[in-house]
C-alpha cells in the first residue's frame, strides 16, 4: 500500500517538475518572430522599473507619456532615470518655454470671437434691443439680385457681445458664377464681393476670376471645391434652415467677401474665416449679413513673395488661399450639417472643427495642385525628403507636447497639433469617409471622432487609445511598414472615396520636417506636467545595444507607450 502511495507521490512530483520547467517566458523564443518596430502601451501608475533588452539589433527606445484627460493637466511631470544617453553625441534641443495660447483666460482677438461665436452662437442672440441695419447694408439685399460690377453694399465684419455690427466695409459684387445647374435639379451660385478700398490695389479681375474658377465652375464640373467638399461632407445650406436662420436665396448663393481681415500683417495672420453670425436673421442678430458666406483676406491673396516675380495663381499665397477656400467651406458645411440638419444644441469643439477643415484641405491638395497642410511638394504622394519647412507639421514638431483638445483661444500652434492628429486619423480610419462621419453626426465633442474611427475599424475605440496610437505613429512615420492604425507613411498616396469622388492623401514622415520633432531626454528632461490631451515624447536610448533598466514614475492618469525601432 505504502509502496503504491510512494510511487503515486513520486509520479505527482514528476508531473509538477515537468510543469515547472515549461515557463514560456524564460524559454527560447517562438520561431518566426520577425524583427521590426515594436510598440507597447502600458497603464502602470506610480513608480516602477522598466528593463529593455534590445536583443540582436541595437534599437532606439522611446517612451511617450500620454495625458488622456481632455480637460485636466497632469498633476506632475513624469520622470525617468537610469543611465545617461547621448544622441549622436549632442543633447537634444530643449523646447523654449511657451505660455500656451490656449490657456489665455480672456480671448479678445477677432479670431477668438469668431471661434467662440461658432461654438456658442446662442449666447449672442436677442441680447438687447438694437437698431436694425439700414438699407445700405448687405443684409437688406437678396443675394439673387447680385450683379457683377454693379451691386454694392456694406458688410458687417465684426459684432459686439450683443450681436450688433461694430465694424463694416463697403464692397461691390465683382463676379457672379451661375446659377450653375448641378444636373439633378439643384442650382448653385457663387457671388464674389471685393472691398471697395482693395479693388484695384489688392485685387483685380484676374484674381477674382481665378478664385471663382477654383470654387465653382460653370458649366458644372466635378473639379471644383464646391463639388469636392460637398461630396464628402454635404451641402452648406438648405431647406432644413428655418428661423432664426436665414433662408437660402432663390439662386442658392454662396457669397465670398475679399477684404483685409488683419490690421497687422506680421506674425501669424488670419487668411479667412466662416462666421456663423451671417447665417442668422437680423431679427435675432443685427450684425448678421444674412448670407451664406465666408471671408478671405485680400492683401494676402495679392501678396507676391520675394522669390516670385509677379502674381500668378501658382504663387505661394494664392495656393494658400485656394486651400483656405476648401477649409472655410468645410466650416460652413459643418455648421449646417450639425447644428441644423442634425439639430445639435452645442457647436463642434474648435479643435475638431479645425481638424476637419485641415483634413479637407489635405484631401483636396492634389486636386488643387497645392502643397496643402502636409507641406510636401505638389503632386508628390511620397513623404518627400528631409528639410521640409512648409505646412503644419513643422509647428507640430516644435510643440509636440501641446494639448490636442483645445476649445478656446485656439492658436496657430493648435492648428498644427490638430492637423498632425487629423492627418494620422484620416490616413488610418477611412480618409474621406472619416471626415464625413465626423461631420454628419449629431455629436460635437470627441465622441464624434471616436465613433468615426470605430466605424472605420469595426473595433471599439477610445480617445485614450487614439492618443496613444497617434503618439506611436508619429515615431514610426519614418517607416512604411507600420501596421494599420499606426500609418502616416506608406510611401505613396493613400486613397479613399466619398460621394462618388476619389481622394488621395499623401504620406507623411514627421522626421522629414524642420525643425525636428521635440523629444525630451535625460539631458532635457520633462520639466512640466503633461498638458491635457497631450503626448510627451522621450528618447530613453539611442541605438541601445544592451539591456538597460529605467526607474519611471508616472503621475496618476498618465499612460506610457514604449516604442522600439
Amino acid at each position, binding site marked *: *500500500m505504502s509502496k503504491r*502511495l*510512494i510511487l*503515486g*507521490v513520486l509520479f*505527482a*512530483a514528476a*508531473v*509538477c*517538475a515537468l*510543469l*515547472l*520547467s*515549461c*515557463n*514560456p*517566458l524564460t524559454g527560447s*523564443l*517562438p520561431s*518566426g*518572430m*520577425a*524583427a*521590426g518596430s*515594436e*510598440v*507597447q*502601451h*502600458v*497603464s*502602470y*501608475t*506610480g*513608480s*516602477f*522599473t*522598466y*528593463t*529593455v*533588452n*534590445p*536583443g*540582436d*539589433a541595437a*534599437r532606439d527606445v522611446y517612451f511617450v507619456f500620454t495625458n488622456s484627460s481632455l480637460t485636466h493637466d497632469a498633476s506632475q511631470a513624469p520622470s525617468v532615470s537610469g543611465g545617461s544617453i547621448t544622441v549622436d553625441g549632442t543633447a537634444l534641443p530643449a523646447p523654449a518655454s511657451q505660455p500656451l495660447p490656449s490657456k489665455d483666460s480672456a480671448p479678445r482677438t477677432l479670431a477668438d470671437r469668431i471661434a467662440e461665436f461658432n461654438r456658442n452662437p446662442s449666447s449672442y442672440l436677442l441680447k438687447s434691443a438694437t437698431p436694425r441695419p439700414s438699407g445700405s447694408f448687405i443684409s437688406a439685399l437678396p443675394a439673387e439680385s447680385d450683379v457683377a460690377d454693379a451691386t454694392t453694399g456694406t458688410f458687417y465684419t465684426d459684432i459686439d457681445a450683443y450681436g450688433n455690427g461694430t465694424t463694416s466695409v463697403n464692397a461691390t459684387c465683382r463676379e457672379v458664377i451661375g446659377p450653375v445647374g448641378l444636373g439633378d435639379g439643384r442650382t448653385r451660385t457663387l457671388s464674389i464681393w471685393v472691398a471697395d478700398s482693395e479693388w484695384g490695389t489688392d485685387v483685380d479681375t484676374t484674381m477674382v476670376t481665378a478664385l471663382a474658377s477654383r470654387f465653382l465652375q460653370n458649366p458644372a464640373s466635378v473639379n471644383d471645391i464646391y463639388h469636392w467638399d460637398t461630396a464628402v461632407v454635404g451641402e452648406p445650406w438648405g431647406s432644413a434652415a428655418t428661423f432664426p436662420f436665414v433662408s437660402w436665396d432663390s439662386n442658392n448663393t454662396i457669397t465670398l467677401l475679399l477684404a483685409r481681415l488683419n490690421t497687422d500683417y506680421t506674425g501669424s495672420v488670419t487668411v479667412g474665416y466662416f462666421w456663423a453670425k451671417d447665417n442668422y436673421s437680423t431679427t435675432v442678430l443685427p450684425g448678421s449679413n444674412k448670407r451664406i458666406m465666408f471671408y478671405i483676406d485680400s492683401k494676402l491673396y495679392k501678396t507676391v513673395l520675394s522669390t516670385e516675380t509677379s502674381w500668378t495663381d501658382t504663387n505661394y499665397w494664392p495656393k494658400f488661399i485656394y486651400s483656405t477656400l476648401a477649409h472655410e467651406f468645410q466650416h460652413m458645411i459643418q455648421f449646417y450639417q450639425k447644428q441644423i440638419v442634425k439639430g445639435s444644441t452645442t457647436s463642434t469643439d474648435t479643435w475638431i472643427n479645425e481638424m476637419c477643415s485641415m483634413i479637407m484641405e489635405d484631401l483636396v491638395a492634389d486636386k488643387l495642385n497645392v502643397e496643402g497642410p502636409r507641406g510636401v511638394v505638389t503632386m508628390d504622394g511620397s513623404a518627400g525628403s528631409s528639410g521640409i519647412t512648409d505646412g503644419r507639421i513643422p509647428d507640430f514638431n516644435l510643440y509636440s507636447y501641446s494639448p490636442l483638445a483645445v476649445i478656446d483661444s485656439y492658436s496657430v500652434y493648435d492648428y498644427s497639433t490638430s492637423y498632425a492628429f487629423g492627418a494620422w486619423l484620416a490616413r*488610418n*480610419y*477611412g480618409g474621406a469617409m472619416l471626415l464625413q462621419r465626423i461631420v454628419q453626426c449629431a455629436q460635437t465633442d470627441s465622441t464624434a471622432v471616436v465613433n468615426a474611427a470605430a466605424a*472605420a*475599424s*469595426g*473595433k471599439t475605440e477610445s480617445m485614450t487609445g487614439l492618443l496613444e*496610437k497617434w503618439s506611436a505613429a508619429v515615431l514610426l512615420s519614418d517607416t512604411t511598414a507600420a*501596421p*494599420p*492604425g499606426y500609418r502616416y507613411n506608406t510611401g505613396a498616396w493613400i486613397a479613399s472615396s466619398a460621394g462618388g469622388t476619389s481622394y488621395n492623401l499623401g504620406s507623411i514622415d514627421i522626421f522629414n520636417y524642420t525643425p525636428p520633432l521635440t523629444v525630451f531626454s535625460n539631458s532635457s528632461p520633462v520639466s512640466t506636467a503633461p498638458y491635457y490631451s497631450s503626448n510627451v515624447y522621450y528618447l530613453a536610448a539611442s541605438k541601445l545595444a544592451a*539591456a538597460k533598466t529605467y526607474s519611471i514614475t508616472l503621475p496618476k492618469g498618465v*499612460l506610457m507607450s*514604449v516604442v*522600439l525601432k
Partner: protein
Amino acid sequence: MTDSAQRGNGTPERRPTGHRQMPRRIVLFMTLFTAATSLASGLTYEVGVIGSAGLSFAYGSYLDDKAASLAEWGASSLGSRGSSQAELFPGWSLGVYAQIDLLDWLGVRLEPRLAFLGAAREALTDRGAVFDQYGIDFYSVLIPVLACGRFPFGPGFLTATVGPFLGIVTGNVTIMDRYASSTTRATLSPDLTDSLYLGLSGGAGYALPLGPGVAAVEIRADWALTSIAKTKLGSEMTALGTTLAVSYGIQLGRSGK
C-alpha cells in the same frame, strides 16, 4: 478507525519547507494556531505540509487590453485583427496547514501557502504567425480557511476542500513582453492595500495513511475573485492557479475517524 488514533498527542513534527521565501510570521502563526488547538481537548487536529504545482492563468481587462493592442499590431489591414492565445504557464505553491476536525468527516483547515502565479500568452498576426509573447507573474501568500471533508473510500479517504482565501502579493509583479529578439520587463511593487485580494480555494483528491501520518494528493484550484494590484497595473487582473497538490500531515488528539 485509522492508525492515526494510535499515535496519541505529541508535538507535531515541523518540517522545513525548503523554501527560503516562507515568511517567518506564517510559521509563528502556525505555531500559535497549533498551540491553541492543543488546548482544545477532545478534538482531533492535524498539522502538515503541502506543496503543489500545476498551471496558472490570469484574466481581466489588463490582459484584455494588452491582447486588443497586440491584435491591432498584428493586423495587416484596418478591418482585420490578430489574436492572442494562452500558453501553459507553471504555477506552484508551498505551505503548511493546521486542521481541526469538527466532525468525523468534516474539519476546518488553515493553510497558508506561498504561491507563484501568473500567465503567458502568445500574440498572433491575422495570418496566424506568432509575433509577440507576453506574460505576468508574481509571488503571493495565500491564506485559505478551508472546510475539509474526508469520506472513507477503499483503504483511504476521498477528500474535498473548499473555502475562501486572503491573498497578499509579496514582492513585485513582473510583466514581460518579448518581441522578435527584444525583451521588455516592467517590475511593479504594489503597496499593501493594492496587494490584498480575496478568492476561493478548493479541490478534491484522495488521502491514505502513510507512516505516522496521512498523505494526500488533490487537484486544487485557487481562484482570485478580486483584482490583484489594480492600482499599480492601472486595470483589473485576476488569477487562477490549478495545481496538483501533495500533502502530508500528522493527526493529533483524541480518536479521529
